[in-house]
């Protein structure tokens, strides 16, 4: 996993609530046994709707409870493969949130009004070290678990970290 410090650039917006991982990547694409190449199937059914537009930008803004439902890590894989580096939403499905952090796709929780303002700005910068999102001359702070932040900043391998506790695991 690559270390994350700042993610800056254009913002794509998907202003829908409770977007489930079945929409992000439908089941017919879960049969592949590789990790890569899911981007072209992102929002496969919705992308056929008239007026659908979701350019590949570094930042995606979305509605509340983004990524609810199925635990498929294929959802963050598809978003990352498509080109997104961070997702900003008022809240996330728990499993999706964790899965995203495992592959270096940064989930950022901001208040609904701030998410909408960032979407309207169309361009922004996320500073993980400072825990801030900057857009339109504004700076908005966000919360993230300190341990998680440490891992993302360092691009650390979770398994290697856990195995540093070898003695404790073996004793257990």
């Amino acid at each position, binding site marked *: 996993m690559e270390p994350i410090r700042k993610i800056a650039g254009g913002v794509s917006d998907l202003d829908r609530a409770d977007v489930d991982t079945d929409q992000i990547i439908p089941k017919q694409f879960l049969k592949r046994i590789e990790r890569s190449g899911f981007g072209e199937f992102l929002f496969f059914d919705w992308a056929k709707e008239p007026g659908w537009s979701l350019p590949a930008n570094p930042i995606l803004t979305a509605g509340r409870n983004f990524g609810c439902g199925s*635990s498929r890590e294929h959802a963050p894989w598809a978003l990352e493969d498509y080109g997104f580096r961070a997702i900003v939403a008022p809240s996330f499905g728990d499993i999706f949130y964790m899965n995203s952090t495992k592959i270096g796709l940064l989930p950022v929780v901001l208040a609904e009004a701030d998410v909408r303002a960032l979407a309207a700005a169309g361009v922004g910068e996320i500073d993980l070290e400072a825990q801030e999102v900057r857009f339109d001359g504004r700076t908005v702070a966000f919360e993230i678990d300190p341990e998680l932040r440490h891992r993302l900043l360092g691009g650390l391998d979770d398994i290697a970290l856990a195995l540093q506790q070898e003695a404790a695991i073996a004793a257990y």
Partner: protein
Amino acid sequence: MAKTMLDKIWEAHEVAQGLLYIDLHVVHEVTSPQAFESLRLAGRRVRRPDRTLATADHNVPTDGTPRAAQIKDELSRVQVQTLERNCAEFGVPVYSVGSDRQGICHVIGPELGVTQPGMTIVCGDSHTSTHGAFGALASGIGTSEVEHVLATQCLAQTKPHSMRIRYDGAAGFGVSAKDLILATIGQMGVAGAVGHAVEYSGPAIEALSMEGRMTLCNMTIEGGGRAGMVTPDDTTFEWFESVQRPGAPSGTELEEAIARWRGLASDDGAVFDRELVVDAGTVSPQVTWGTNPGMVVGVNGSVPAPESFENPVDREAAERALHYMGLEPGTPIQGLKVDRVFIGSCTNSRIGDLRAAAAVVKGRRVAGNVSAMVVPGSHQVSAQAESEGLDEVFRAAGFDWRTAGCSMCLGMNPDILAPGERCASTSNRNFEGRQGRGGRTHLVSPEMAAAAAIAGEFVDIRDWS
């Protein structure tokens, strides 16, 4: 200080700060291949194959295909064969296609007796919360975490917040565990329990069978919860006492285990971060009308108008859902015609579910406009049902009797809805396209699904004599 059941299980498994030991890891064909591949590339082994169990369920055809090599769909075949090969290479026990222990991961864990009170359990599937019915801490994980658990038998976790949902009163006639959980999600919303481990309590929960408790805990994730739990009690212990389960202790070992398990209950005076009260006595049989499980109404109700939602986000979601579902506001649920009926999934495919549905179906015929199927949750459930003649009851009524798998819950195998088809389904998700692109899913209990198959439309099971 008084502790919750969550506190007790958490503390008993915390190897180091934020690192939880995992007692049972269930693996299936869809979310594991990339994890095994990474393990191989890193030169790592599976740390505790004896604490790991694999099955093929998500992808498998339900037409009695006897071996993985005979699965017609090439991608599915490769995925199941990859699971078999990975399990052979890493020494993980696997119940694949053709095994008499094969079945849905959340059905076979309890069936084998490897799901036990007080355990930490994970699986690369969001419905792992099912196992919490036994008083275990059970959560769905992603593929990176599957790899992590395979390699270390541990999982880096932040402790969830605690939430108690207390049910006042008793569930009425015709009201099942499925109705209780659907009504609960309707009340709190699909993100109502995000970040929380939910403990279900109250007389209506104590009165549920283990199967009912599994249905309840199964759908915890549909309310956003990280885990669902029920306090182990005599009903729980009977699960292990009444049948010798291959993965469970027996004799004095079982007695000792039960004595330990009795200590898991939350202490009197334990404080939960959140509390919710549901009036079980007022819950009626539930039917979803929209595209998430929180969009639900009692069978005597009607499709709501988007304008009835105060929050503009909810209003917009309702408009979208009604458009997708092909429904008009104000349409009564009763009388709404269905094209398909699916009885199955990790939510409602156990022997008790099939018995309940068969009791409704017995001596009747599936309506002419309906195509109906029953997919048992496991090979063992199927064998038990057949020994009781339930398969004949279903077949005689015109149901298609299938072999075990996840089937039309997620439509990864050939069992899918055609665009526009309306389905009464005992599964757990009515998301857009979940059961097939353009398919319209209404979540209900097994009894309600069976009655809809016979009537050709939704009816109130309480009027069914």
